[in-house]
């Protein structure tokens, strides 16, 4: 299910880019100005129609996830691009993130960081919060879908039907088999283009961790979902298609009995908390973005 296009049209996406240096920013508004090493986009409030993550059953048989409308009444501030290798390396240097050798090794520092687990991504967000004073965290699945707009694909392929589960299983295998193989080599930032919100590389070759846990729910005849079990050892990752990933996995793989294509890479894109719980930095940030103040943020890469 994709976002209704009119929603995307109605949203004003403000992109703040910077011309100023760190020194310049300190001069501009000392002590109170949040300094971020990345550009962010404020996606204006709006609605998102989507099928939530997780497995659903009706009367004990597999069923499609219900269509939901989620109303966002505050802007979503989210990184324009994914965290780069250089940015992650700075966290490693500060002994706040684990050093990772593996996927993406050998890629230049300006490329997106790949090969990170959920735990690594959370460590990075916490470090970013400490160093900037602005609360950073991973998005939830619905925030990601909202930000991704037309790039979101919340269908997990044909569902296993009630009457002929095996034929549906084969159909799902066919659908997964027809997905194009994605070259996993990290590409320059922006290589996969921008979406209608001004976010670059959504649904490119790097899937992004979300905080949403795997959930199994029963759908009542009223359409109401009753959660049965929740497993936060498995989180939703988002990209070209939604996937579920154990939180310590850095390099997803298919093989053996598994069919279909796993995410090509796992990476990070953070949201900035704007609920005011951080001493108001996030709110102030929004306010300045709304007034079009330039130089508030800078892109350190």
């Amino acid at each position, binding site marked *: 299910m994709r976002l209704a296009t009119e929603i995307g049209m109605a949203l004003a996406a403000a992109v703040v880019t910077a011309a100023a240096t760190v020194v310049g920013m300190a001069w501009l508004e000392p002590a109170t100005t949040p300094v971020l090493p990345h550009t962010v986009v404020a996606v204006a409030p709006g609605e998102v129609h989507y099928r939530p993550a997780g497995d659903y*059953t009706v009367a*004990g048989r*597999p069923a499609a996830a219900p269509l939901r409308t989620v109303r966002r009444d505050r802007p979503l501030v989210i990184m324009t691009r994914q965290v780069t290798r250089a940015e992650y390396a700075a966290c490693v240097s500060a002994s706040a993130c684990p050093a990772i050798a593996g996927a993406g090794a050998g890629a230049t520092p300006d490329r997106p960081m790949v090969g990170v687990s959920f735990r690594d991504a959370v460590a990075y967000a916490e470090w970013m919060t400490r160093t900037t004073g602005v609360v950073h965290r991973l998005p939830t699945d619905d925030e990601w879908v909202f930000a991704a707009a037309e790039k979101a694909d919340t269908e997990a392929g044909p569902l296993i039907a009630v009457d002929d589960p095996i034929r549906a299983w*084969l159909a799902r295998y066919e659908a997964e088999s027809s997905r194009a193989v994605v070259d996993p080599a990290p590409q320059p930032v922006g290589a996969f283009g921008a979406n209608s919100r001004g976010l670059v590389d959504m649904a490119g070759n790097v899937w992004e961790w979300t905080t949403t846990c795997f959930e*199994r729910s029963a759908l009542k005849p009223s359409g109401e979902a009753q959660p049965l*079990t929740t497993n936060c050892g498995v989180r939703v990752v988002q990209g070209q298609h939604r996937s579920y990933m154990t939180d310590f996995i850095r390099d997803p793989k298919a*093989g*053996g009995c598994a*069919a279909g294509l796993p995410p090509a890479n796992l990476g990070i894109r953070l949201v900035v908390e704007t609920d005011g719980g951080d001493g108001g930095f996030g709110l102030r940030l929004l306010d300045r973005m709304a007034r079009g103040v330039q130089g508030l943020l800078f892109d350190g890469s």
Partner: protein
Amino acid sequence: MTRRSVLMGAAIAALLVAVPALAAEPDLPRKSIELVAPPFVHPHEQATKEGPKIVQFKMTISEKEVVIDDAGTKFQSMTYNGSMPGPMMVVHEGDYVELTLVNPATNTMPHNIDFHAATGALGGGALTNVNPGEQVVLRWKATRSGVFVYHCAPQGMIPWHVVSGMSGTVMVLPRDGLKDRDGKPLRYDRIYYVGEHDLYVPRDQDGKYKSYPSLAESYSDTLEVMRKLTPTHVVFNGRVGALTGKNALTAKVGETVLIVHSQANRDTRPHLIGGHGDHVWETGKFANPPEKNLETWFVRGGSAAAALYTFLQPGVYAYVNHNLIEAAELGATAHVKVDGEWSDDLMKQVSPPGPIVPGKVGAIETGTVAK
């Protein structure tokens, strides 16, 4: 190693081969067969009422760069007829195999062929050394039934040629066809041919796979990796995913499939996840009674095995090397998509995954008593 020294080595080896005593030309009908690429096998009779024949095949050797995984890893391969494994040749016991082996001038290496099914002269290896720009014709009599490996075996470089792709399979069927342990005839509706290769790709300092502009330049690094006996890839039919997804094998419920599995270099252990081997010739030789109802069968390095199975349930089956690390991490996985009617009698999900219900066992409510 320069190409010149390689060619000289081959020339010296050829001089050492004694000229064999020539038998009279067998006065038999001839039949020419066009080979097809695996996992398929050229059309053939499972049992034949006709007398022995001379069956003519032709294979052209091709050295080429191929991609062996989804990450795009490039590999300098050597192949019979362009495929890994080389195509399967099917004849009947008592037939003669007459192979024309062509080594085009576009290649850089001398090659030959050693048929495990043939008798004498290193399986034909000593009589089939061909330099680039040459061809050779070898005839041998198929005196033993079974599935047998063939592979390249050039002087001084045997393992390298084999782990670069140069192996395949010959199937010599009994003239009256396959039989079960009790001598009852067995037939198959489909035959699939899986050739497993262990590959040894060198890496650079960063751990990334290296590619080479030519076979010769890949040789010394590759040999170093080979000597550690730890393959970087274990693949069915030439690359990770060659038999999955869009390339998955297909069958229908009720169909009987013969799966021939060859490995010219290293032991392996095929297993059909969700199915079985109804009749398995684990050592691949049809004069021995097949074993029944196997879960996994062992294929000795340098041999081929044959397993016959009738599919009873629809769905997706994984056919793997049941060293699951090699299956899932290194690539040794195939899938079979099977269409048909599900049997609840053979299997049923009694209640789907859900919260743990204390005191409840199976589908029976606590407190009820089964009559």
